[in-house]
């Protein structure tokens, strides 16, 4: 796969791999064993600082912010980084979506103030889009933004805000005019999560961990300078934010779960019901082969996209199947891994790393099938945007927001 990269990109990849290998012990998977989420986020911030001092932070961003590398190089780096278990995932949102939007739409003064500390991992940014009544149907959000002199006053509630408990700032979409149809009455803001009136309440997930939060806004005052884009451009900017990280984030064909090699290892050391070990079981062997074909298909698609970008062309839309296919399969394979163990599969190891632990991977999989676009939304997107099938029936289309039954 890497052999189809340009010579420059291949040289970059090799250099990055060498550099990453030198830091695995301090920041990679081994360094993260047994850390609490808070400690892990702290490690991620320090790792970000090290990267920023060595030209590996925000690789594709132009000077003066980043080193001016390419999107391909950033994606290559992220993929190698993910393979080695570095904690970069905690900054994927902060640097992948809100900060680039600040860079694209904020005044020079605000860029200068907000962007450099974010790049060094000193500040973390959240993305505040979803609400209790607006998940897949983002434009149904209800948080109000009322104009008050030179300021705006925000009130309402956001939910599923990743890592908000550690974040300093965020970008959020709010409704400035409920008398307009739902997509039109939205405006996009920077918000200070430490400002008076902001309350962050962590949500405990089914794994017992706390990655997400509810964020309440009680008459939070936001200066008009923090508005990004025009009044009414909120939905457009929200979509732009979601499209932002398409190729810059790591592509993990395992769906951020354990590797196939780990599954094979487990099967080989587990007595089989049909055969001496589970690895001798024809059913298990078939699953291994299917997993291999699926994961290698994804690796190939991603590699082709990188090669296309490396050659200065635009990759095809097939990259959009990655999350859907990889995460769904991770759920399947993790379940099967516990099946291999039989009743002893009940015995849960204390591990809490989805990349190494099948119990945890199984338990955490339903979350990933919802976060960042549910399977159903992703299938709809493929059907509508790639195949040209019609949108679902939408009775609220064109109706003023305040007349939509709720």
């Amino acid at each position: 796969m890497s052999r189809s990269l340009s010579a420059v990109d291949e040289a970059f990849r090799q250099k990055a791999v060498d550099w990453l290998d030198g830091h695995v012990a301090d920041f990679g998977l081994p360094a993260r064993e047994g850390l609490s989420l808070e400690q892990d986020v702290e490690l991620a911030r320090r790792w970000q600082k090290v990267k920023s001092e060595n030209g590996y932070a925000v690789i594709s961003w132009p000077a003066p912010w980043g080193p001016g590398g390419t999107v391909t190089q950033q994606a290559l780096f992220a993929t190698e980084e993910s393979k080695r278990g570095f904690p970069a995932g905690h900054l994927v949102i902060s640097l992948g979506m809100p900060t680039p939007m600040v860079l694209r739409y904020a005044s020079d003064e605000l860029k200068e103030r907000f962007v450099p500390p974010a790049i060094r991992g000193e500040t973390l940014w959240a993305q505040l889009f979803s609400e209790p009544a607006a998940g897949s149907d983002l434009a149904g959000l209800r948080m109000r933004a009322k104009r008050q002199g030179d300021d705006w006053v925000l009130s309402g509630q956001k939910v599923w805000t990743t890592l908000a408990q550690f974040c300093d700032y965020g970008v959020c979409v709010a409704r400035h005019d409920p008398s307009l149809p739902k997509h039109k009455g939205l405006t996009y803001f920077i918000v200070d999560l430490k400002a008076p009136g902001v309350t962050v309440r962590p949500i405990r997930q089914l794994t017992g961990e706390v990655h997400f939060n509810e964020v309440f806004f009680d008459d939070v005052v936001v200066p008009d300078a923090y508005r990004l884009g025009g009044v009414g451009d909120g939905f457009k900017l929200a979509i732009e934010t979601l499209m932002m990280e398409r190729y810059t984030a790591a592509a993990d064909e395992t769906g951020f779960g354990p590797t196939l090699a780990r599954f094979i290892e487990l099967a080989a050391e587990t007595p089989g019901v049909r055969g001496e070990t589970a690895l001798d079981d024809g059913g298990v062997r078939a699953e291994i082969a299917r997993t291999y074909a699926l994961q290698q298909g994804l690796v190939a698609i991603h590699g082709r996209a990188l090669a296309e970008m490396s050659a200065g062309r635009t990759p095809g839309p097939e990259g959009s199947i990655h999350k859907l296919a990889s995460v769904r399969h991770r759920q399947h394979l993790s379940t099967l891994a516990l099946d291999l163990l039989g009743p002893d599969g009940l015995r849960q190891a204390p591990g809490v790393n989805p990349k190494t632990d099948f119990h945890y991977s199984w338990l955490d999989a339903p979350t990933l099938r919802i976060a960042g676009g549910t399977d159903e939304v992703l299938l709809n997107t493929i059907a509508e945007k790639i195949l040209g099938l019609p949108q679902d029936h939408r009775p609220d289309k064109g109706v003023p927001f305040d007349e939509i039954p709720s």
Partner: protein
Amino acid sequence: MLAGLTEEQEHIKSEARRRLEAERNDERLLALLEAGGAYDETLWSSAREMGWTAIAAPEAFGGLGLGLAECCLLAEELGRVCAGAPFLSSSLAVIDALAQFGGEAEKASWLEKLASGEAIGALAAAEGRGALLPERPGLIFSDNKASGEKTAVIAGAHADVAIVFGADPSGAARLGVIALDAPGVERRPVSTFDASRGVADLSFTDAPVALLQVNDARAAANRLIARLALVNAFEQIGGADRCMELARDFALERRAFGQPIGAFQSIKHCIAEMYVKNELARGNAIAAATSCIEDADDFELRAAAARISAIDAYEFASRETMQVHGGVGVTWEAGLHLHLRRARALALELGAKPEWEERIVSHLTTA
């Protein structure tokens, strides 16, 4: 490759699409199903006229000396139209084997004829049920004579020459080439659900055979089969894409409950799942083609991944496009069953899925 096609490759692909679309005629294909033992002569004469038969043959023998990439591009187009003759890939097996391991005499006898399409080739590997390559071949080569049986040979009913997998009297695997009009060769057409594949059982009784010069015949056969599987994967992907497009077009046109059925999520998601499978298969197939062209060590593993994901993609798309079409989808005239049949045939012809899954797992667990 295939992402960045050369101008010549683009040309081959677009010319093939144009010609095949112009000549496609489902009624003719449906008639072939009933005729049994026949193939699409229009297609085959086009293939000869367009030079498709010559693509992979060496230039010294009147071929174009092009590579596997061009064969794959063409196979994808043939798959889209459910082509009514398997000869391009069945002959490729013979061209491939002779070009690599054939003696001068065999090359001279066959390559030119195969390149022009005057002769048709086939690969005779299986013996009865089970895996494509028998563990201990019953077909024995002794004193340049072959005796034994080969079964379910694709294009066997029409082929002039076959590459045969057998063993010497000590039981060691060997590859040979046999002219099928020679004395001692008998063929019996096999009745099957995809009649234009020309499937036949072959019996040999002291039939003259020329052995190919190869040290490890089983390994060579496996590699040969992997290359064919890759070409077939592109054919499967072409068919799967076509099924997806048919489903999409029908879902846009057909209305029920006051809207196009393509607006219902159950239908949209079904077609989107086809897309997912087709792209996974394409990803693997392109990776395998690249690996083959670069002669990389991982080629056979990648070919196996391409084959099992292409089997999946085509079977799913051909099955579910019928479901999307509803009642009309199961009629004889609608012709969707041509794809259903072809998907199943291609899933069996070069060895069924379990065999290819096992190839992957044994690679992964012994590496």
